[in-house]
């Protein structure tokens, strides 16, 4: 506490303010700023990033500064600016998709020496400032594996997916889950419900109940905080696959597996690069960083007690193919759920294909529509 006080006094006395203590003490440290759109402990998206921040801070030469519940308004511009000017951050991670345009783009132009790394965005060469980069994990790989397990364990053949919004990141997971399930159970269908917002627990519980009433016996989701959905499924005695973080404690009986982020790996990689003096502008830090199971960006939860041997065998086989790079999720012949063709036989979208990050379709077997 005393340290804070003296450094603050110094800051207040020094009219310059910009040259306050943090910058000086950060000379030998890499200061990284992390910005979250919601509370840090939401059992979901933001918590996964906050755990990544905690992970990278295990490196003795990294100082992390965090700000949570920052809305996608001028507030995030202010936060990035404060982290750079007041805390001496040389790299910032604004982790919500909505921070990118216009907020990150604006600040990146004003601060060419700072690295702006955005989660999930699409950096476009020539269009966006050179000090902007984007990173994301191919979490659809883990979701595909979860789909395989779900396809095995369902008795009704009806799976349910509770999603926030029909946007590419979400559609990709719905499709991967469906393809995974249908790879082992071709008759399986996935009913989707869009709640319309990232965190609306009552609607999520309502969606879970109505899916279960329609005979769905395995649920999964893509919302900010899956807690309510996991607990509702457990109470109604059906299976559930987790998302964002390991939720097995919330559904000890029905938890099959789940897709989890491993951001501390990503953030540690970036920290090493920044320490080595690499920059985005010089091209020594890649502008697009992506990785899946193989790169350790994402992982699958341990199997729950209900998962049978057959399911484990197929799931492990798929994982092994992801690990050696031979697995392609989206390959032809691929039809959408209105009967149209997405890919003819023999063609495929590899994971790195940027087309997948613009996804606007649902594959055959998904019951639902991308219209709002």
């Amino acid at each position, binding site marked *: *506490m005393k340290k*804070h*006080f003296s450094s*603050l*006094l110094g*800051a*207040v006395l020094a*009219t310059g*303010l*910009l040259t306050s203590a943090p910058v000086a003490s950060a000379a030998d440290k890499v200061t990284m700023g992390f910005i979250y759109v919601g*509370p*840090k402990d939401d059992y979901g998206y933001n918590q996964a990033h906050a755990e990544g921040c905690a992970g990278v801070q295990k490196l003795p030469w990294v100082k992390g*500064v*965090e*700000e*949570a*519940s*920052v*809305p*996608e*308004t*001028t*507030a995030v*511009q*202010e*936060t990035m*600016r*404060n*982290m750079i*000017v*007041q*805390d001496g951050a040389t790299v910032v991670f604004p982790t919500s*998709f*909505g921070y*990118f345009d*216009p907020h990150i783009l604006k600040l990146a132009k004003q601060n060419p020496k700072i690295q702006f790394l955005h989660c*999930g965005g*699409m950096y476009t060469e020539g269009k966006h400032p050179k000090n902007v980069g984007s990173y994301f994990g191919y979490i659809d790989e883990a979701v595909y594996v979860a789909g395989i397990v779900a396809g095995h364990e369902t008795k009704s053949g009806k799976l349910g997916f509770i999603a926030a*919004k*029909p*946007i*590419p*990141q979400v559609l990709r997971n719905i499709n991967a889950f469906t393809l995974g399930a249908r790879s082992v159970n071709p008759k399986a269908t996935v009913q989707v419900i869009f709640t*319309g917002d990232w965190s609306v627990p009552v609607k999520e519980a309502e969606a879970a109940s109505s899916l279960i009433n329609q005979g769905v016996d395995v649920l999964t989701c893509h919302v900010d905080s899956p807690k309510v959905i996991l607990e509702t499924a457990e109470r109604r005695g059906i299976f559930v696959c987790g998302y964002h973080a390991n939720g097995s404690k919330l559904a000890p009986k029905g938890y099959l597996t789940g897709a989890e982020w491993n951001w501390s790996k990503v953030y540690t990689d970036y920290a090493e690069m920044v320490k080595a003096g690499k920059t985005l502008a010089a091209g020594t830090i890649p502008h697009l960083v992506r990785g899946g199971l193989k790169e350790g960006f994402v992982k699958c939860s341990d199997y729950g007690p209900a998962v049978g041997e057959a399911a484990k065998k197929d799931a492990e086989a798929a994982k092994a193919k992801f690990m050696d790079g031979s697995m392609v999720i989206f390959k032809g012949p691929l039809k959408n759920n209105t009967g149209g063709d997405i890919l003819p036989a023999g063609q495929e979208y590899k994971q790195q294909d940027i087309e997948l*990050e*613009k996804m*606007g379709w649902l594959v055959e077997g998904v019951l639902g529509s991308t*219209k*709002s």
Partner: protein
Amino acid sequence: MSSTPEAKVAVATPAAAAGRPPLPWRPALEGVVIPVGAVLVALALFGLFCFVQGRNAFAVFAAINKAAFGSWYAFQNTLVRAAPLMLTALATALPARLGLVVIGNEGALVMGGLAATVAGLAVQTAPLLVVLGVMLAAGMIGGGLWLAIVGALYYQRGVNETIASLLLNYIAIALLNHLVNGPLRDPSSLNKPSSFPIPDEKMLPVIGSSNVHYGLFFGIAACLLAWVLMEHTTFGFKVRMIGGNIRAARLAGLPVALLGIITCFLAGAAAGAAGMVEVAAVHGRANESLAAGYGYAGILVAFVARHRGLPIILVATLLGGILASGGILQREFKLPDATILVFQGLVFLVILFSDSLYGKFGFFKEERR
């Protein structure tokens, strides 16, 4: 509802008692000491809260001051946050003079932002000033009509204006979500559904080399205009007359419904202008970030400023400063994100309480007892 705060606020200024010299500066001093005292008390309470949570209260105060008012750099953050609050506060403040409690600020902001976006996209190839002028007009009309509904429902059908305006907030946000996820959606706005963007070069610029955009001028100008309109024109006089006694105003032959609906329109126009500023200066498009809570904060600003144009500028700046200091509490003191809500709540509770203290202290009377 017919709350008439201003009728009660006016502190009696009795003529100086015979034989004693009048002290005219004392009532004026009251108007300074009470609000300043309230802020100090709120700070003390918050300091106690921080102390209980194991933080050095004085260090926290120093940090808040540093983050909100301590330097030109910090003060810019405060001003950026204050600009939309000045505009949304007027959406409550103007109808309050009629005796109406309107809380439809958020909805009017959203509708203004939507209208400004649609209009701006339609004329995006025109010169900068034309684009901005059309956007501002559309935003003000969009927001204005939205709250004019509240006025019309009240004066034509007797529908409670507080509830109607609250409901219209939810309806406006649902419309916004429906439109930007559906009919208005730019297909290339991938993971954050948004409308098509206004071209960068057609956006409302920042003032000089600062971080503050011209929306601040809109806010200050609107508050000044509202002050002149309400305190120094016959329109304002008539409005205040309706607020004072609606029956007397009817008997005097005032077109009560028309004046009321016009005032609600102006109120909505102010919040609509805030929506236009959010689109034209910040986001460049319409999306869910338009509903960021400026509307609800504006209601409080209006009440704390007792619905007067000039104090709104000050109160909005104070709240802007509080909001701008939220970050440093997290980054330097590892206090949770909710701390700033507790602080904000305390400040407003104490300031509202302090309103009831006017006239309670003999010292501030014009004469000695």
